[in-house]
């Protein structure tokens, strides 16, 4: 009796119930008069990959960019609701969006290495841009570690001084991921990170996502259903229910369940490719 009790206690201690780190609470976002996405409530677990899927224009990018407060850099943009990371309100009155973006990294659809910087300087760009100074050896270590994490080290270690623009598209995207993780964010947002890549580079980035989730919480927007099924633990389906209405969260849940047994017909249709 006492043994079973301590056993359950032990398992509870070893595998604590997954705690949501990132909470979206009734989040709406838009541009001026237009509301792009409305009333999304979603819990995102730590060290998981969450896929955001949905038809074009349903507000996936807008929602994603609200999480790192990049959305508000567009004139006229607005966000309402609450987003918390480990209990901290990211939109709190005294919170500097610059600090939010250091905690929540982002990788874009189009790889955007800084063209005037070398590969090494690209990796270290985040520290420099945050006004931190590194010694030469600290910089070397961080460069190597970040490039190893994205499996790019062996391909570029002999040309760290070359421009980041000299790499292939897939390598550039991995360089951008290295740049994002070099500042050690807690969450990594990815907006269609593979849509401009060939199948081999896509597979490389997908494997990377699976590897990165041990250290980071990933939120990935994708139009590729197979990719969502392969890499994500949780899937959230957003859609526009009627033309002219903002995008809404239709349903979210474990990826297996969403793909095999969705609650809503709209989800099933979208996943089966019957949408529109």
């Amino acid at each position, binding site marked *: 009796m006492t043994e079973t009790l301590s056993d359950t206690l032990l398992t509870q201690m070893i595998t604590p119930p997954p705690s949501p780190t990132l909470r979206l609470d009734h989040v709406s976002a838009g541009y001026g008069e237009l509301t792009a996405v409305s009333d999304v409530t979603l819990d995102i677990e730590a060290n998981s990959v969450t896929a955001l899927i949905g038809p074009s224009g349903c507000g996936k990018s807008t929602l994603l960019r609200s999480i*790192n407060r*990049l959305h*508000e*850099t567009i*004139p*006229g*943009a607005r966000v309402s609701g609450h987003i918390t990371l480990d209990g901290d309100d990211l939109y709190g009155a005294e919170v500097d969006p*610059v*600090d*939010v*973006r*250091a*905690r929540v*990294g*982002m990788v*874009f659809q*189009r790889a*955007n290495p*800084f*063209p*005037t*910087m070398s590969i090494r300087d690209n990796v270290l*760009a*985040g520290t*420099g*841009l*945050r*006004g931190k100074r590194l010694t030469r050896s600290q910089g070397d270590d961080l460069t190597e570690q970040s490039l190893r994490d994205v499996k790019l080290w062996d391909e570029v270690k002999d040309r760290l001084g070359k*421009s980041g*623009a000299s790499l292939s598209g897939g390598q550039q995207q991995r360089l*951008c991921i290295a*740049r*994002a993780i070099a*500042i050690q964010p807690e969450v990594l947002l990815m907006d269609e990170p593979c849509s401009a890549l060939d199948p081999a580079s896509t597979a490389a980035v997908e494997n990377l996502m699976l590897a990165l989730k041990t250290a980071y919480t990933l939120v990935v927007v994708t139009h590729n259903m197979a990719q969502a099924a392969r890499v994500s633990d949780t899937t959230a389906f957003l859609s526009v229910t009627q033309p002219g209405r903002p995008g809404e969260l239709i349903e979210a849940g474990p990826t297996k369940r969403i793909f095999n047994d969705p609650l809503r017909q709209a989800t099933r249709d979208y996943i089966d490719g019957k949408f529109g």
Partner: protein
Amino acid sequence: MTRTSLAIPPLRPGRGARRADTVATIVMWACALIGAVPLVGLLWTTISRGLARLDVTFFTQSMRGVIGPGGGALHALMGTALITLAATVLAAPLGLITALWLVEEADRSSSPGVRRFGGTVRLVVDVMTGIPSIVAGLTVFALITLVAAPGTRSGIAGSLALAIIMVPVVARASEEVLVRVPEDLREGGLALGAARWRVVTKIVLPTARPGLVSAVVLGVSRVVGETAPLLLVAGFTDSMNYNLLSGRMASLPVYIYSQWQNKGVDAAAYNSRAWTAALVLVIFVLFFQVAARLIGRSRKETQK
């Protein structure tokens, strides 16, 4: 009419279309040539008449005490260099800051009031590009009257007048360069947790640098041949003057004008010097224009 086969007609223009093609080609070539005639004529006249005095003396002597042949334009070359340099020092930062403010601040402001003010500034810059240079000269002339004896002439006054002409040129050209910096790069910087000003100094400016240099060089090429404002506020002298702050200062365009206007006994000598100065000035302007283009082009190539 019997159809024996389903042959696809060859995609060759008919005879009429071919004739129209030929005519159009000839007309276009003719237009291009007619357009080139004045340019070639101008260059030819300047070179053929200017070569005579393109000698060492021209670049090593001033006109001090020279009557008739001999003499040179060193004082005018020096004056143009100093006046243009000072004008650039005044105008380039102002033009760049205006462009930076417009693109990086006003356009991105969340306040509609600031965005509207940005539009007003753009309009003012556009209007300023059209200001006749003599008006810039008169403005400075009037300003000088406020602080010194009316009619006081100096190199720096000339610089000020040229700067007024240069600011909008630099602002406009840099604005176009800054707008072309991909938004991706700015967002990439912001997403790394960078403050806006750091994104500007560490990403936008380095990316745009060759284009910005070319914008400044374009501004220089715009003012280096200006005559009227310099005649008005920098005046003219036959002697060297290295001091921008006091005394009249010669410049190449005004030198041309005064050689032509005040011919002495030996008119041919004066004419000849004027043509040589004109040739040197044309070379300057061409040099700056080509430099601006080359610098701008190297930027596009490095971005690929």
